């Protein structure tokens, strides 16, 4: 695995910080070096929110993903695509929540993955799991961790009382993966 420099962005309530935390936690448990850096400030109140995640086999220098150096960007809504399209490194991956993002990206030097995340999440049980659908797609491409490694730390991040939500989240992760594999 090469180092992952990932940005997950969306609007407040789409769970972009949360799903990032889950990924970082799973990376840590898998023995990798990880960092998770959230955006903070007024833009979080009803606006866009994002986090930068580094996962590497080596010590992490800057925890900030530099412009044009993201190995992947997950854009959960339109403003996030506008803001972070340019951040994807040439040859990198851009995951677009096509349920609510209508426009097509301008870049032609990157891999673009359209995921109908809201719909797939609804099918899995709740639209709230759109973040997990996107994570499933990201894992299918990046191969940075296995789905099981994510689910194994679920209760560590969210608490034991959320164990009942694991099957739903497993479904969401899986449908995100299938969206990539069955194209």
């Amino acid at each position, binding site marked *: 695995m090469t180092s992952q420099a990932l940005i997950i962005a969306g609007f407040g309530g789409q769970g972009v910080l949360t799903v990032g*935390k889950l990924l*970082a*936690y799973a990376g*840590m448990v898998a023995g990798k*070096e*990880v*960092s*998770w*850096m*959230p955006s*903070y*400030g*007024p833009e979080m109140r009803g606006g866009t929110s994002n986090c930068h995640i580094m996962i590497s086999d080596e010590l*992490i*220098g*800057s*925890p*900030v993903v*530099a*412009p*044009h*150096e993201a190995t992947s960007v997950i854009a959960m809504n339109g403003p996030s695509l506008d803001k972070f399209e340019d951040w994807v490194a040439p040859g990198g991956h851009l995951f677009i929540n096509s349920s609510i993002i209508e426009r097509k990206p301008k870049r032609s030097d990157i891999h673009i993955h359209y995921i109908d995340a809201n719909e797939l999440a609804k099918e899995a049980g709740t639209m709230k799991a759109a973040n997990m659908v996107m994570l499933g797609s990201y894992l299918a491409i990046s191969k940075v961790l296995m789905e099981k490694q994510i689910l194994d730390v679920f209760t560590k991040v969210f608490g034991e009382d959320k164990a009942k939500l694991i099957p739903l989240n497993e479904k969401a992760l899986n449908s995100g993966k299938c969206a990539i594999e069955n194209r």
Partner: protein
Amino acid sequence: MNKVLMKGNEAIALAAIKAGCKCFFGYPITPQNEIPAFMSEELPKINGSFVQAESEVAAINMVYGAGGCGVRVMTSSSSPGIALKQEGISYLAGAEIPCFIVSVGRGGPGLGGIQPAQSDYFQATRGGGNGDYKVPVVAPNSIQEAIDWTYKAFDMADEYRTPVMMLIDGLIGQMMEPVSFENQSCKEFDRSGWATTGTKGKRDPHIINSLYLEPRDLEIHCLKLQAKFDLIRQKEVAWEEHNLEGAEIVAVAYGITSRIVKNSIEKLKEKGIKMGLIRPITLNPFPVEAFSNLPRSVKSLISIEMSLGQMVEDVKLASCGKYPVDFFGRTGGVIPTPEEIVNYIEKLVKEGK
């Protein structure tokens, strides 16, 4: 090792409690609010005290009160809030009260912004309070290091009877990294000789004070504070050296900027430019020694900061004119990218500096 993923602010707060901190006094300000939030939740569980004061000025004076009683105590704030605490910090230093102050920097001046900055280097290392006093300042660059230095800072505060400040920035405060609280311990200190714990009619009162009306008395007191700081300079200075072997340029950077610079160093390697790094961990006292035995290959120094140039003055003082000292910085909450540092260094090299 048993690792957990924690935010910098929360990790510092937890480390403080594990180090024996019993009291926290503060006033909310972004980007350090997770510290008081954590303390308000956790301190009552160990019969400690959390008070959200009516202002930063009140909070730092509450620190004076609790610290004077010999209790491990801390406060935290961010740039404009630390500005308000300066008077209290001078009094704490004058009265030799151990305490821990966390400054989570954001852009300034004035209310400034809330994004990460290092423009409070002068505020931390020089201080804005009155009088001949110095406060030790430590600047970790990772969350694990912030934890380790929280324990050390409390010990230093007690050992030297001084306020100790930790200077980080919003980024270290807000980000999460895997950390461990294992293998940490704190020393025991006997505070019975000075703390105001009540005489019970059995001894003379201890007086916590910074007022000396007789000039010679005050001079003796200041000399004592100075001697204490000299001892700290001898025993506590810390820095990291990285990639110095064969380096032509040595960057000097602290806190989060040092990690960005490490990325730049790797990029410069690919371009055949050898850059090393000196990372001051204690900003005050400044690691002057780090500059005395640099490899012969070194031609120049460059201070890289998230400010318009503050630590650069200490770099110049420490290197005593032996090397030209350049500067690169972004301010106002803008985080420099490794790429723009690389571009700047490349330009320097082309110009033969």
